């Protein structure tokens, strides 16, 4: 399947074919934008399947605090940008690392780990990179229960 980039519809049908019921939702939002939701066990499988299809560039990893769970979104693709979304419960925020698929994913996983506390199992260097050295352990600033101190405006 290499050489040509798959279209939006090809991405959706390929994922449905390969993963079946694990694809909770798949939609073409607009031209060159696909949003896919898979269950946690099939997050990496979905990315492997997409890589086989030729969607083989990881643009970013986003983490979103969605109340009881944390959603992790992998933005993959070149022309067509596919957002593969999954949710992990806050009590057990673990996902397999993508470093063996995309060595450059290391720094993105570090960011999501630091900001939202999602542990990527298999990342060789899940260490502090963005927060201050004296940042307390177990405090994840991008979670909704963390409220930054707002300095009083000068008057």
């Amino acid at each position, binding site marked *: 399947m290499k050489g040509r980039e798959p279209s939006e519809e090809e991405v959706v049908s390929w994922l449905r074919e390969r993963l079946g019921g694990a694809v909770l939702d798949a939609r073409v939002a607009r031209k060159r934008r696909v949003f896919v939701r898979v269950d946690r066990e099939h997050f990496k499988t979905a990315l492997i399947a997409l890589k086989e299809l030729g969607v083989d*560039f*990881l*643009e970013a990893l986003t983490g979103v605090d969605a109340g009881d769970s944390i959603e992790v*979104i992998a933005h993959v693709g070149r022309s067509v940008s596919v957002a593969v979304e999954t949710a992990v419960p806050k009590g057990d925020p673990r996902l397999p690392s993508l470093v063996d698929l*995309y060595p450059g*994913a290391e720094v993105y996983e570090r960011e999501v780990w630091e900001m939202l506390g999602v542990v990527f199992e298999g990342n060789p260097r899940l260490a502090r990179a963005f*927060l201050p050295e004296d940042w307390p352990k177990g405090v994840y600033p991008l979670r909704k229960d963390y409220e930054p101190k707002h300095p009083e405006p000068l008057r």
Partner: protein
Amino acid sequence: MGPQHPIHPEATLIKLKVEGEHVVDADIDASFVHRGIEKALEHKTYVQGLFLAERICGICNVAHTTCYTLNVEGLAGIEVPQRALWLRLIVEELARVSSHLLWLGLLAHVVGFESLFMLAFRDREVVLDLMEEIAGGRVTSGYNVIGGVRRDIDAATAYKIKSSLAKLKERVVKYRRLLEEDPIVRARTVGVGYLSPSEAKELLAVGPVARASGIAYDIRVNDPYLVHEEVPFNPVVYDTCDAWGRAMVRVGEILESIGMIVYALDHAPSGEIRARVPPVFRPPPGENVTRVEAPRGELLHYVRSDGSEKPYRYKVRTPTLANLPAAISMLKSRGDRVVHIADVPVIFGSIDPCICCTARVLVVNEKGAAKEFQLDELAAKRWAR
């Protein structure tokens, strides 16, 4: 390697492991200027957030506002007038010229070519003056707003832009020849900071770094977000895989950008420049992803709305973050490709972070004694060898 420059979002401490003069390992620490902008954006309305997004980066502020406005407009379903898209393209390309000229100057400074440094910064003034004429601000232009742009470009300004850029073009052609032929520049950049095409792909390099490693990928071609389908240009691709190639890509892009600006000035349709948007609005629940080719590479913004007047989550992935793994790989000596400490500024500079960040290098020997070098001393050290 640090410290950092306050205007740059990606100021970075690079920890180097060295054996004598050779760098064997590197790691990053980007914590010094982490300002929590993503969190802050959750506390601002969409219109207020624009001003914060503009200040993510000083030099590529236009790329950030282009991405932010397109992202929010896509989320809220706001129709932007055609002319506004053309004007956004003109200002975005102008900002690219300014950014690449700045970078060219810093490269010249690092390799010890001070006269080219002066010339590049003099020429950048031409662009900044034009930016002031168009937008009112020299660096942080504040030109894009949600729904369109703030000011129109009239015929007199268009004439001024064209005549200034014609002069600039001649000079840039001269600099390109200089990069091709000058022994100083070539000695310091050719073969330095090698990144093979397969590594560039694996390490997720973007922008000029990827294009200098032969990966012909440019968001403006692959995912046109303004009116790029109607404006002719050629992505600049080199396959030398080194710092010299990255310099040539950027200089080539300046010339392409100038061509695009002139074409857009001639062909932009007339009409409205802005759709009126209320200061507080509530987009429907949903999400949106927008990508923009910033001067440093692909920039990605992701927004999620829960139906309120503020974004539920706003994510920014800047190109320098994407290029850091590649930069770390370039910094490591492997086999015959030895990386000297003196090459570090050139290599790290070749991914176009704010090079002021690399003003000092901390070298720790096995006994733990530390010695700090200024960037200039490093350059001199290379020449003394």
